[in-house]
């Protein structure tokens, strides 16, 4: 209603201005001169131009989007405020060539930006709605292609004007449109991926991976563009304050994309190497529904060490966020965690050698030690049911403080001779045995050296505990292979 009133008033005012000019001068050319000379008339006409652009925006919105959803409007308003502020900041940098034409170009840039954001939101919406009509596809495609054409035109324009007339404000425009072009490409790619996904009945598993890599790539391009732009701007004009926020955002999203890609790669690697595929019996013995997507599981399932079963793809997406079992929150990354001292221990072997003998050797190597240190401590809270039988024997001698005085001879018996598990055991502490009175005294007090001594011993204990964890994991793996 208010907008309607403003529009009406603006039309009325500009009508009056035109009429007044024509009434006074009677001819076309003198009236134009009169209007351009008169500040109030020009103000009215600028307002009219603004109203026109808003109306044009509404028409375009009607054509390309139809009704906007509440979330889209919200995003649009939020982003517009930032963009307007940044535009005002940009005006301060280019106050020398401030002219109506210049303002008009910025307004048009802002106008186009709005459509880019809306297109992004619209394409994201594809994932959310069960019904995507043909008109939706045609709208998105025509919008994206026209945006790309306009962006390219302006980049081209800016490029040639910079070549011909030297660095000017066109630099900013060229750069802004280049950024917008990356947005168009990103949106287009997302649209293509979503469309392919829509074709099939089942969710397309590798879509997320493709999306991640596109985001990474586009993020990289954007960051490079921003840095390049900053560099040129500092050389030619001044520090472009108005580009700092978007640059920061671009860098942050690039960092996030990089992080996501790394996490995803790690998740996939872990999936492939660490966890066994769930067998038919496993599936039959559980209730057969993947708790992540709530769908039946038949093939392509993985079993975690805690015996919970999920779809491979569901688990992978979850592991990108968090390395825990979704059901019991067991920390799954504790399994392949490298020991702190040795450099880069090799990953778990994919094909263990025939294990029964290995397992026996493994146990024999341990038994005597177990008898050496019979201090009975409760088993540490291991969640894996498979390992409960072996856990106490491994943890007890290592973690209970009673053994500090007489540590088991570590390395040789622990490592199965045929390199059953190529884990490198953490360096055993230098000498835990002879805790002399001097050593003990050394740890008392608040001096630096006392604290260092304490930390030293704590480190030793830490590496013992790590070793114990590794052993538990080895037992775990052996136990799960036995079953």
């Amino acid at each position, binding site marked *: 209603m208010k907008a309607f009133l403003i529009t009406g008033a603006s039309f009325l005012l500009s009508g009056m201005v035109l009429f007044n000019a024509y009434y006074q001068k009677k001819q076309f050319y003198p009236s134009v001169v009169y209007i351009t000379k008169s500040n109030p008339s020009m103000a009215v006409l600028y307002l009219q131009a603004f109203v026109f652009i808003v109306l044009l925006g509404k028409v375009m919105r009607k054509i390309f989007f139809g009704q906007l959803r509440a979330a889209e409007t919200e995003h649009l308003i939020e982003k517009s405020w930032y963009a307007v502020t940044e535009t005002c900041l940009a005006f301060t940098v280019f106050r020398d060539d401030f002219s109506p034409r210049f303002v008009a170009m910025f307004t048009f840039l802002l106008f186009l930006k709005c459509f880019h954001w809306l297109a992004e939101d619209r394409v994201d919406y594809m*994932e959310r709605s*069960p019904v995507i009509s043909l008109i939706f596809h045609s709208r998105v495609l025509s919008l994206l292609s026209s945006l790309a054409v306009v962006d390219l035109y302006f980049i081209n324009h800016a490029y040639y004007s910079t070549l011909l007339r030297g660095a000017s404000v066109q630099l900013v425009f060229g750069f802004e449109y280049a950024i917008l072009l990356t947005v168009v490409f990103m949106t287009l790619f997302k649209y293509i991926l979503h469309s392919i996904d829509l074709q099939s009945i089942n*969710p397309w598993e590798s879509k997320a991976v493709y999306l991640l890599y596109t985001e990474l790539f586009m993020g990289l391009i954007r960051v490079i563009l921003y840095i390049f732009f900053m560099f040129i701007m500092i050389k030619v004009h001044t520090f472009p304050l108005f580009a700092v926020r978007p640059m920061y955002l671009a860098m942050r999203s690039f960092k996030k994309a990089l992080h996501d890609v790394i996490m995803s790669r790690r998740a996939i690697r872990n999936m492939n190497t660490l966890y066994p595929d769930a067998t038919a019996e496993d599936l039959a013995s559980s209730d057969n529904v993947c*708790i992540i*997507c709530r769908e039946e599981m038949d093939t392509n399932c993985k079993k975690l060490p805690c015996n919970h079963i999920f779809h491979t793809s*569901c688990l992978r997406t979850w592991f990108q966020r*968090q390395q825990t079992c*979704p*059901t019991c929150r067991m920390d799954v990354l504790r399994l392949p965690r490298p020991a702190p001292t040795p450099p880069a221990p090799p990953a778990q072997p994919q094909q263990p050698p025939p294990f029964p003998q290995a397992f026996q050797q493994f146990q024999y190597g341990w038994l005597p030690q177990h008898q050496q240190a019979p201090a009975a401590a409760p088993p540490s809270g291991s969640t894996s049911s498979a390992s409960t039988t072996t856990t106490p024997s491994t943890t007890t001698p290592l973690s209970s403080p009673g053994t500090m005085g007489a540590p088991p001879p570590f390395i040789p018996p622990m490592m199965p001779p045929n390199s059953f598990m190529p884990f490198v055991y953490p360096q055993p502490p230098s000498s835990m045995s002879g805790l002399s009175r001097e050593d003990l005294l050394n740890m008392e007090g608040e001096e630096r050296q006392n604290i260092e001594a304490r930390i030293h011993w704590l480190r030793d204990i830490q590496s013992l505990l790590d070793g114990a964890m590794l052993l538990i994991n080895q037992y775990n793996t052996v136990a799960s292979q036995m079953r």
Partner: protein
Amino acid sequence: MAGSALKRLMAEYKQLTLNPPEGIIAGPVNEENFFEWEALIMGPEGTCFEGGIFPARLTFPSDYPLSPPKMKFTCEIFHPNIYPDGRVCISILHAPGDDPMGYETSAERWSPVQSVEKILLSVVSMLAEPNDESAANVDAAKTWREDKTKFQEVAERTVRKSLGL
């Protein structure tokens, strides 16, 4: 068909309509967008919210169920664990990474095992037993702790208001 988030939301909707838990109704606001839900929660019996019907809105992220939805009551409700603007503050709605209150263990946070039904059931139990240790609405927590009769009065007023009386 479309993404896994959509599929799962549809599955949950079906489940909720087939066997709805007592005192809870929930579903998408419109069937073209499954990521905005409306829920009606009945105040649990034997509490000061008894008899009230409280509307709330659930907004799901596009990576649901990996991230938790957001829940916001769209009516006035005076409760220690509900922000004055209606947002619900319970631990299962928090992603394991962030810890706004600084006390939750990751075991009680969001995980894909949770579902709309579980969220709504926890909200019902939260209505019955406010947790004044971690107050989202400090006034409400203070009233709940120090002046139960006044809390009762305010709660009954919101109940009447929620029924349009």
